[in-house]
């Protein structure tokens, strides 16, 4: 059973499973914050040989420092700790561009992290359904303003103010896999200033 249960919604809203070991010639794991726990749980069921072929890219953020030693104890062939997804991106792209077919991809943690890593895999021709994802930790969303196209990270309230153009945006469940973001739509377009109070929905 997945640790995070999402309310049923429109088809566009991504859903996530539970990581499972699959045969492969190499294994790439990308996780942030509490996503480390999904990798540690995978270690209970996966054969120890998995880790000798595994590259882990881990972004601890504010809540994940406690897991870095446990990940190191798995003795993966590579463990790269990165301060942010943006900082990890060049390495991740290099891995994906030089990898061979047979690479298994495991993503765990926040939707922002998993969505962006999945889009990077799709860009090198990996079908989106071939990427395993398990949600753990924060429900904060990565949202694109449909008006200015700017993306705001870590959105926890609905509505919220676009960090680029300043419009008040209603957060939809409508999701783009290509840009790994939910859609934010101006909530007071017809009655400027009539903005409902922000509710903490994505914590």
């Amino acid at each position, binding site marked *: 059973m997945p640790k995070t249960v999402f309310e049923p919604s429109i088809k566009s809203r991504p859903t996530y499973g539970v990581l499972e070991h699959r045969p*492969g010639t190499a294994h790439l794991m990308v996780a942030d914050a509490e996503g480390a726990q999904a990798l540690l749980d995978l270690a209970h069921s996966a054969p120890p040989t998995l880790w000798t072929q595994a590259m882990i890219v881990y972004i601890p953020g504010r809540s994940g420092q406690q897991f870095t030693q446990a990940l190191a104890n798995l003795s993966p062939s590579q463990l790269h700790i990165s301060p942010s997804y943006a900082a990890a991106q060049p390495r991740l792209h290099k891995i994906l561009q030089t990898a*061979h*077919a047979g*690479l*298994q991809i495991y993503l765990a943690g926040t939707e922002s992290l998993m969505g962006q890593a999945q889009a990077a895999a799709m860009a*090198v021709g*990996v*079908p989106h*359904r*071939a990427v395993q994802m398990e949600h753990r930790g924060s429900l904060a969303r990565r949202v694109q303003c449909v008006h200015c196209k700017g993306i705001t990270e870590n959105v926890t309230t609905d509505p919220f103010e676009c960090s680029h153009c300043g419009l008040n945006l209603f957060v939809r469940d409508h999701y783009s896999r290509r840009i790994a973001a939910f859609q934010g739509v101006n909530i007071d377009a017809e009655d400027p200033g009539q903005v409902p109070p922000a509710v903490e929905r994505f914590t």
Partner: protein
Amino acid sequence: MSMSHNKIPVTVAEVVTLNPLIKRFRFVRRDGASLPAFSGGAHVVVEMDDHGTRRMNPYSLMSAPSDTTGYEISVRRDDVGRGGSLYLHQHVKVGDDLVISAPVNLFGLDLQAKKHLMLAGGIGITPFIAQMALLSAMAGRFELHYAARNPGLAAYADDLRARYGDRVQLYYDDQDQKIALAPLLAGQPLGTHLYVCGPKGMIDWVRRTATDMGWPQQCVHYEEFLAPPTGKPFQVELAASQKTITVGPDQSLLEAIEAAGVDAPYLCRGGACGQCETDVVSCDGHIQHHDHWLSDEEKATGHKIMPCVSRFEGRSLVLDR
């Protein structure tokens, strides 16, 4: 859904004997107009009136998808089959009129792939010829590995070598050459899609090896048309049409339904596409499932049947048709 609006009357414009087993046929529209464009991997169903028996066999289109002046198919003669290929080989000649279906593609290229790796066995080469023409025109990255019994039976091998150079690799059984599958798969870049068309044993081998090596199922494409197997005659009740029909030993259930004047859906007529899936109302006996469509669980429940290739043995079978 009726398929009759998708039919195209054609004339045979050319028949070429390629080797002792394979002939190529070119069809043009009887009214001289252009044929519909198609995508590499598509097939047409060729209808034949074999001395009173209606035969409808699927064949992959192998002409260039950009050529709408005619369609070409290559047919391998099957001496022990039900007779469709034999009929084409022995009776169909230039100037004859035939009816074909509009093209249907169940074996299309996934153009999100970074590279296309194609594995052909024998006559399974035909869809790849059209696909390579397409990829070559759009500068797509591809590689073909083509296995045949011997050089004499490797239709189009020389031609493809000449056109595509070492992107085409040939393997001959009589020279003990075999595709080194595991190293071949291991060396492919991430984002490669794999396509296999050939005998059942080859398809099973390729799919199993790819799965064991971590290839996602979405990256592994295969096409195998089954000829409807022959068997003992049996009776079937068609509940919706209120008819009882007898399926002959050389006839498929779908053919018998059509012969009774009942319009049933179909596309591939080879157990692959799922279009003819039919609900079973009741079954007292054993359904012989021969298709690639239904899952093992669906086959076990006996609630559905694919009349294009599957048969029945037992006391009574009632279908919702």
